[in-house]
């Protein structure tokens, strides 16, 4: 189902654990259905053999777990890095968030991850998903789905639905053309997908709205926010030990139903705190229980940085300097920025 199947990962993990190199494995853990894969820390070979999976639902970026896991062991932690994860890995490393000596990094290629929300909207409760060539076969728990009656070719299969791979992939995978950038100890396979959509397409769509429309759009999105803080907790760039949102006197600690202000404040600050460090891994949008397109906030900042301060991809190397930590004498003045961005848009 992926270019490297689970058996290859399991074999490697088990042999490294038996050799005594690693005693912890960071990988993806099977859930009750094939669609509810969660990130997992494995500490014995038995559970690796039983529970480790590698399929289209392995969405989690594992890098952030290195911060806590490397502290818990004397040996090394084995981590499987997909191309997009390698950027977060580099970023965390350049911020000295974990000790590289205590990590055994293995590069694995990736054919994209499915957007479970998209699939569930299309076919209700999922029981399983398989790949046949370029097609994705989704098995639903229910016989039919009323919303999709027009899809007649599937009626013969009963609960089976056929999709193009691109219809079910998460948005970040559609514009991904990343290669593994981390200095890995070992490479099982490399490479990711080739981009089929332009990364800043959605950002540009929002930019082209009027100010009023943009405000209404984001107010609508933010009003769904339940302030679960999942986007903050999962973000591999959010690694402060003390967070402003955990501070009761910040005034933005808790959700209140008064108006949408708190949510906007939270999301503005969250996005701005990772500006220049965000690797665009898309985890914030993936974990959002309310499907708020949070990556569009980060991408706006990335896009502006690229235009104003030169092409920059956070996490490309460990030694890079964030554009917000540096400056040049000829930077644009804040009063000219609107015009500059406008000009680049019309190009």
């Amino acid at each position, binding site marked *: 189902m992926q270019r490297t199947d689970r058996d290859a990962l399991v074999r490697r993990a088990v042999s490294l654990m038996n050799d005594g190199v690693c005693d912890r494995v960071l990988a993806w853990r099977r859930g009750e259905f094939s669609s509810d894969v969660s990130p997992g820390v494995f500490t014995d070979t038995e559970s690796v053999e039983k529970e480790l999976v590698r399929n289209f639902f392995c969405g989690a970026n594992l890098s952030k777990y290195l911060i806590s896991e490397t502290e818990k062991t004397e040996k090394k932690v084995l981590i499987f890095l997909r191309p997009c994860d390698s950027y977060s890995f580099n970023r965390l490393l350049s911020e000295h968030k974990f000790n590289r000596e205590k990590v055994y990094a293995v590069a694995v290629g990736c054919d994209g991850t499915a957007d479970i929300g998209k699939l569930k909207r299309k076919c209700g409760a999922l029981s399983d998903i398989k790949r046949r060539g370029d097609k994705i076969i989704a098995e639903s728990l229910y016989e039919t789905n009323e919303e999709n009656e027009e899809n007649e070719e599937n009626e013969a299969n009963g609960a089976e639905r056929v999709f193009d791979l691109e219809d079910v992939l998460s948005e970040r995978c559609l514009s991904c053309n990343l290669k593994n950038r981390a200095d890995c100890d070992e490479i099982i396979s490399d490479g990711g997908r080739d981009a089929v959509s332009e990364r800043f397409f959605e950002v540009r769509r929002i930019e082209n709205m009027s100010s009023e429309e943009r405000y209404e759009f984001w107010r609508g999105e933010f009003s769904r926010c339940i302030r679960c803080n999942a986007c903050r907790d999962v973000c591999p760039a959010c690694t402060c030990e003390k967070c402003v949102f955990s501070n009761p006197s910040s005034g933005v600690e808790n959700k209140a139903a008064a108006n949408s202000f708190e949510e906007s404040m939270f999301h*503005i600050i969250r996005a701005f705190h990772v500006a220049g460090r965000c690797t665009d891994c898309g985890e914030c949008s993936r974990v959002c229980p309310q499907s708020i397109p949070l990556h569009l906030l980060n991408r706006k900042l990335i896009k502006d940085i690229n235009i104003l301060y030169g092409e920059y991809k956070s996490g490309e190397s460990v030694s890079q300097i964030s554009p917000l930590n540096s*400056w040049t004498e000829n930077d644009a003045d*804040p009063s000219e920025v609107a015009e500059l961005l406008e000009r680049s848009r019309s190009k």
Partner: protein
Amino acid sequence: MQDKQINGYRPKIAAFCCNWCSYAGADLAGGNRLSYPCDVKIIRVPCSCRVDPIFVLRAFRRGADGVIICGCHPGDCHYTSGNYHTRRRMSLLFSFLDYLGIERERMRVEWVSASEGAKFAAVMNDFVSEISKLGENRRLEDVRCKEQTETRLSEER
């Protein structure tokens, strides 16, 4: 004081002024008896780069209609590079807030040196008249803060 009142509305402006240039510039404006609207509330900061984006948002939250950050001219920073950082940071913040639908005109960065009292007064006059035209900040305010401020004001009266 020059009266910029339009239909009984007076904007609330938070002006972050760096200690070394702009605050002295404001002082000079006063010393020279140059008038600028009293709607501008000056907050002294050690350097314009002391202004965290949270400060700007907090000002809006608590009812400011416009926020202006004044610092030394690029190259003249007392701490060598503070205002260069401000320049990048605020460029991105303003553009980002614009992306969320908050009017870009409500935020400004200006470079005012200690000798530019006249510029300080001119900038503030211009900014206040622009904000007066825009009207109240409704998109980033927090109504709860508003109630607090208004009760406090009426109690003071």
